[in-house]
């Protein structure tokens, strides 16, 4: 029996296929302007018996294809519980939203908070800032870590932060220090949400932004908590959805 999970996010789509032995296939693609078309292509030539969709495109998926849906909250909680069963807190920072989820010992969601109304504190924010400083998103975190000092960035709004960065550059400031300041401002923002939901124990960090080493290090340093990052942090939602599909077949 093969179970599939698909996470249709605003920036990318992930697909995970499992059977009783574990993950047998994992795929990812950019959402583009036609997410259902991309989802269809991702599922091309893979066989599965049941699929569960999550992410902001889940309701469209349910209409376009056969499948059940769960929210990204439940999917991430399930995925993280599978990867790190002893951690009760999940921080997910994706392309356009961020969320903190608290689970009980059995992996069931007990509390959550989300920011999905603006780009502040999300992957999108880091992407725009990287671009205005002339970095690719892949090198951004590594570069920020080489700075020995940081320049504080006060604006959290993407538009204002961009002009703040521009004026710092115009003053001749070091772009590495600016990069470091930007990273710590995103971490601080995530921390306030984190504190409202859970204030102790290890944190599972998922979503594309967890690939950024500077984010991980600052999160660890500033919270003093253990930060656990799965090997493919952006796949956690799809993995959770696949696990839920697998349970539905039993």
């Amino acid at each position, binding site marked *: 029996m093969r179970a599939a999970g698909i996470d249709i996010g605003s920036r990318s789509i992930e697909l995970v296929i499992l059977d009783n032995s574990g993950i047998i296939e994992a795929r990812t693609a950019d959402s583009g302007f036609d997410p259902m078309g991309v989802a269809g292509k991702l599922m091309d030539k893979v066989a599965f018996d049941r699929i569960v969709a999550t992410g902001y495109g889940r309701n469209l998926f349910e209409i376009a294809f056969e499948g059940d849906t769960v*929210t990204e*909250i*439940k999917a991430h909680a399930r995925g993280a519980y599978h990867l790190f069963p002893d951690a009760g807190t999940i921080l997910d920072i994706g392309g356009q939203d961020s969320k903190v989820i608290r689970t009980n010992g059995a992996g069931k*969601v007990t509390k*959550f908070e*989300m920011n999905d*109304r603006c780009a502040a504190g999300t992957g999108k924010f880091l992407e725009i800032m990287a671009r205005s400083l002339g970095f690719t998103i892949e090198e951004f975190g590594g570069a920020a870590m080489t700075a020995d000092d940081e320049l504080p960035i006060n604006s959290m709004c993407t538009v204002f932060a961009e002009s703040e960065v521009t004026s710092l550059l115009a003053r001749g400031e070091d772009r590495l220090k600016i990069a470091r300041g930007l990273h710590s401002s995103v971490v601080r923002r995530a921390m306030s949400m984190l504190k409202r939901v859970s204030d102790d124990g290890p944190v599972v960090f998922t979503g594309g932004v967890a690939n950024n080493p500077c984010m991980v290090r600052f999160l660890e340093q500033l919270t003093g908590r253990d930060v656990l990052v799965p090997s493919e942090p952006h796949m956690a939602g799809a993995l959770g959805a696949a696990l839920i599909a697998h349970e539905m077949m039993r």
Partner: protein
Amino acid sequence: MSQDLMNTLQQAFEQNVIDIENYKKDGRKAIGCYCLYSPVELIVAAGAIPLPLCGTKNDPVAAAEEVLPRNLCPLIKSSYGFAALNTCPFFRFSDMIVADTTCDGKKKMFELMQQYKKVHVLQLPQNQNVEKSLAPWLDEVRIMKEEIEAVTGVEITTERIDAAIDLLNRERDAKKAVMDLAQIKPSPIKGSELINILFKVGFLADKEKGIGLMNTMVDHYKALAENGESPYTAKTPRILISGVPMGVGSDKVAKILEESGASVVGFENCTGYKQVFTVEKEGDRLDVLARQYLSIPCSVMSPNTGRLELLDRMIRDFKVDGVVDLTWQACHTYNVESFSVEKHLKDAHGLPMLHLETDYSDSDTEQLRVRIQAFIEML
């Protein structure tokens, strides 16, 4: 059959506009209100028609933003926009407005509203301590009575107040009976239907008609429940909505909850259970009214422990599985109070709460849907 009743209600609602026009031609006055704290008995006692004017629609918000700041509560903007555009028939009918100094946004908005209508503002105390606050509040109630007498030319006697108390007690009882239908598990009535009924009945100039309609509804839904008919099952999660007022047009959260598979069983707000009380006919009537209305548990009061007591009661009586606390954007009093409400629900009842902050527009429907669906998944 349920649909027939809703149609009758709709017809009554439409006919009501024509009725009020006729009443006004015959010289009857209409008085608009913006808040539950204004004792409606005094309006009814003067033979005037009370009209609840709180804005619940998004359409006039843009016009209001030409004058009011954007980051203001949508209820205030909607109310003001209706006045500025003159698109609300009930505002047009009003010979006078009675308002209260509740939250900062509202009381400052009323200053601007004066340019369109005579607005009489009651200075509402900030707490419910009877020793400190009753005397000034009673004074305000007395001035309100005099203002209404001046506008209507009717002397408000004790007999007239008693008749108004009787009528409004019966109306409140009928509203309570409608809302209490949802205590049945599973509820025979949807939360969105409850809002529709409470909202529309509120405008009816002929209160007897409204009471009659509500009583018929109660009989009808009770019969459905006895036959085991319900849109829900015993397993459907039962949600209590708490917080800011809602009405037709500002009920998106109730609708998304229902679309996501929940049964909305109650409203701990001004639209709903905060309206449930009985006024006694004893002693000095103005004193009785002042005491009763001062005790309404709204977040503009500090402290506002009555709200937690009302929540306790409703959680028990309506067999609630989870609470959704709704805050209109920029409503500081409800927004801040959310923290204490969540803590109380957790400590006293072990109940989860979802706090939602939104406005009247549809722009965040999908974001709300994720939170609401995730909340229901975790119940």
